[in-house]
Each structure stands twice: as C-alpha cells, then as structure tokens.
C-alpha cells in the first residue's frame, strides 16, 4: 500500500517534469527583451556626429510629439538592409528620426551615409556603447519610439521591416 502511494507520487512527479520539459523545448533559450515598455529615458550626454559638439539628452528630445531613435553602425550588416526603410520613415513629418552611431569608426560611418543616404534629423555618437546600455539596448540595429514625455513606448529589435514601419506610423499618427 505504502509502496503504491510512493509509486504514484513518483509517476505524477515525473509526468509533471515531462510536460514542463516538453513545453520548454519549444521555448527559445535566447534572451528576448520586452518590446512593449513604458520606461523613462535615463539622461545622458553625447556628442553630435557632424559638429562634435557636446549635447545632452534634454537638448535632443525637444520640439516634437514623437521621436524615433535608431541605433546603427557602418559595420553592421542588417543595418544596410534596414536603411531604405529609414529613408522612407524620414518622410514622416510627425517624428524626429535620431540616429545613434554605435561603436563605429567616424570615417566608415560617413562613407556609409554618403553611399546610402542620411535619413536622420540628427545623429549622435555612442563611440563606447555606453549610451546604448542606458537605453537597455543589446545590439545593432535597434529602434525605439520615444514620446514627448521622454518615455520609451516601443522598441524593435533587429532590422525594421514593412510591418514595423506601419506600426511606427500608426503609433505616431
């Protein structure tokens, strides 16, 4: 009798483990941060890409309803794919498109812009990658929608596509 109880408890326990592991198989083991967030931007200081002047986040995020901050680098291959979408996005007048040049060589970055066009209203430098950590970004490319209260309301990991472009246009309408 006692044995039967132990046996059935063990069987139940292992069945539970089986179900959990079975479900776990379909989960991804790669970190995916949340994309819908409501987080106030941490203040940061940066330098302007072209002029090299010091600029603070308070000076960057002024005078518009919405901002789209795009992290890019000339060495990043998916950024090339994404670039035409950004050019398209720059036609949207209700947003300010801000580029964050991530851990890049300025010469290469300028060459990149000359070749593919410069869609950004303004580019700031993040030569050490530390501003990206303030934004809680994990890599390039990554795009954030920021509202006038300096709150991040949405983020896109990896290259922007047609769908995410529509989403941005919808949110910032």
């Amino acid at each position, binding site marked *: 009798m006692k044995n039967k109880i132990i046996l059935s408890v063990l069987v139940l326990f292992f069945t539970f483990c089986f179900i959990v592991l079975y479900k776990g198989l379909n989960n991804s083991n790669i*970190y995916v*941060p*949340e994309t819908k967030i409501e987080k106030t931007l941490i203040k940061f200081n940066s330098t302007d890409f072209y002029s090299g002047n010091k600029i603070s986040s308070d000076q960057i995020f002024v005078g518009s309803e919405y901002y789209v901050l795009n992290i890019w680098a000339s060495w990043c291959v998916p950024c090339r794919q994404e670039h035409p979408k950004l050019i398209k996005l720059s036609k949207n007048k209700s947003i300010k498109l801000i580029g964050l040049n*991530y*851990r890049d060589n300025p010469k290469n970055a300028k060459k990149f812009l000359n070749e593919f066009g410069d869609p950004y209203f303004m580019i700031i430098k993040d030569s*050490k*990658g*530390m501003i*990206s*950590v*303030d934004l*809680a970004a*994990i*890599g*390039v490319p990554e795009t954030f929608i920021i509202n006038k209260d300096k709150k991040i309301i949405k983020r896109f990991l990896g290259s922007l596509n047609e769908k995410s472009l529509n989403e941005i246009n919808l949110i910032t309408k």
Partner: protein
Amino acid sequence: MKLSAFLLIILIIFNFTNLNSEENNDKIKNKISKNIRCLICQGQSVYDSESDFAVSIKLIIDKKLNEGLNENEIYDFLKKQYGEWITYDPEFNKKTFILWILPILLFFIGGAIILRKFIVQKL
C-alpha cells in the same frame, strides 16, 4: 549543535560580498563582469566575451565604479535595465526561493532519513 553550526556558516558566506569591497578596483571589476551574462552570447559571461555588448558593459561597470556605486548597486542598475536574466547570481525572492531552499531542504530530509532509519541511537 551541528545544525546550528551549518546555519551559522551559511549566514557567514552570504555576507561575504561585503568583505570584498575593500579590494582594489580591478578585482571588483572582474568579479562583477564574471557575474554578468553577455546577453548576445551563448552562455558566456561579460568577462569572458569580447563582443560589442560585453565591452560596453565592462565600460559601464568601470564608469559606475568611478561614480562611486558599489557592487550591488551596479547589479541593481543592470537588472533594472535588462531584467534578471543578466545576473548569474539570482537574488532571493518569491520567484527563486525554491531554487535556494530546495537543495538545503533535501539535505535536511536526507539527514533525517539517515538518522532515523540506519543509525543505532545508543552507543
């Protein structure tokens, strides 16, 4: 007697992190970066990786240390930014208490079984 000694030992080791705060900057930096997961790598710590993400985190750790933050404040900052996945040292909370308690519980259960079933009580 023995049990209380165990508990004491566990308590002492939990306070260990504070003892190390007197060590020099480099050691702390390495220690922190060993306990932080490189999010874009496969199972590597920030210390072990030279990826862009890891290098940025190392710089941030440096900067925060210079700003006067201590080890735990840096973990807290990174956890706030990236979530608990980033630290290799899970904190004790309602999500993780089973993780911390279960092995110790099993240890005591095992001890109780051994005492009751096998050992002769009187010498």
